């Protein structure tokens, strides 16, 4: 028994070297499968959630993300946000004036006017659950706004 434990011990110890050796090719070949198998995504608090609608303009696109209320461990928040990106940054007009349908019901929920040079943004809510502008940002390659929303499913009857 002691001999078996000893042999196993040495084997596992040698395996440790093999594990570290396998890490080098592992970094190249396992990274993508790891993400696709686990289905992991970056928290919507940072990524803005998935793009649900893309509107094509002549030189640029408007990407409307889903409404985010689920950046919490369980359930949904009372208040969240929606992210809208305009891309590519270098082909945007001097002024963007667009109505955005946040909940996908075919009706515009707010209007946004952006001066793309100085990022000055004016938000006009149409729906009562659109609370206001959280901020205007320039992540890589695009212009982006986040609009604060009240969770429509949690509004008191």
């Amino acid at each position: 028994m002691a001999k078996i434990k000893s042999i196993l011990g040495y084997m596992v110890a040698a395996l440790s070297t093999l594990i570290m050796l396998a890490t080098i090719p592992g970094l190249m070949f396992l990274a993508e499968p790891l993400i696709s198998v686990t289905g992991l995504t970056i928290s919507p608090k940072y990524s803005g959630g998935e793009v649900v609608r893309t509107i094509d303009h002549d030189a640029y696109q408007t990407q409307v993300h889903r409404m985010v209320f689920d950046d919490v461990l369980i359930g949904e928040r009372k208040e969240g946000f929606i992210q809208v990106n305009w891309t590519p940054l270098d082909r945007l007009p001097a002024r963007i004036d667009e109505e955005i349908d946040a909940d996908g019901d075919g009706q515009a929920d707010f209007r946004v006017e952006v001066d793309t040079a100085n990022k000055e943004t004016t938000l006009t809510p149409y729906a009562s659950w659109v609370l206001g502008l959280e901020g205007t940002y320039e992540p890589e390659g695009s212009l982006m706004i986040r609009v604060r929303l009240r969770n429509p499913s949690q509004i008191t009857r």
Partner: protein
Amino acid sequence: MQGFLLGLANGTTCLVFCAPALIPFLMHEGQTVRQNLGTLVKFLGGRMGGYLLFGLLAWATGSLLLQAVGFQGLVIGAAYVGLAALLLVAVLRKKAPAQGACAFEGARARLSRWPALLPVGMGFLAGLKVCPPLLLAFTDAASTGSLAGSLVFFLAFFLGTSVYFVPIPFLGMFRRVSALQIVGKFAAVIVALYYLYAGILLCAGGIL
């Protein structure tokens, strides 16, 4: 039944929101499983008190006051600050020494009793935190139309959520590991500092 099912469906959220305060506190106390059960019952009792108070407020004032963001922020913020203070007192207090030696039995009896109120107070303030499932419960309870209906709904909801707290007293199985008591004390202080910060922020948002 509806309230109980709503509680069952959302109880994990309640556990998650209460855990940062409850778990370090229980670890620090180093009690047996049975004693932990008693502490948990006091905590849940306090929590129910917080829920019922909010439920009464919601029924009495109509949900208007509840919806007023500033008011909510102030109440929840104050609850966080209170919870932080209680947690700090709970873990940093010197526990009452062995009975029998002191002549001032009246004062001693009072002093040895008040630590028992700590979990009640913590539970009450934790209950005031208005976690997301609680808002759903308010909305549904208010729709019953009567005070008695609201209270029964809340009680059932509370029972549904409390199911998930059942494993917590089993922390007592590890009470002999004195390291856990020390870890619990340190963790409670860190959690309390975080609640203090969150509470002050919410209060400031509620006032401004």
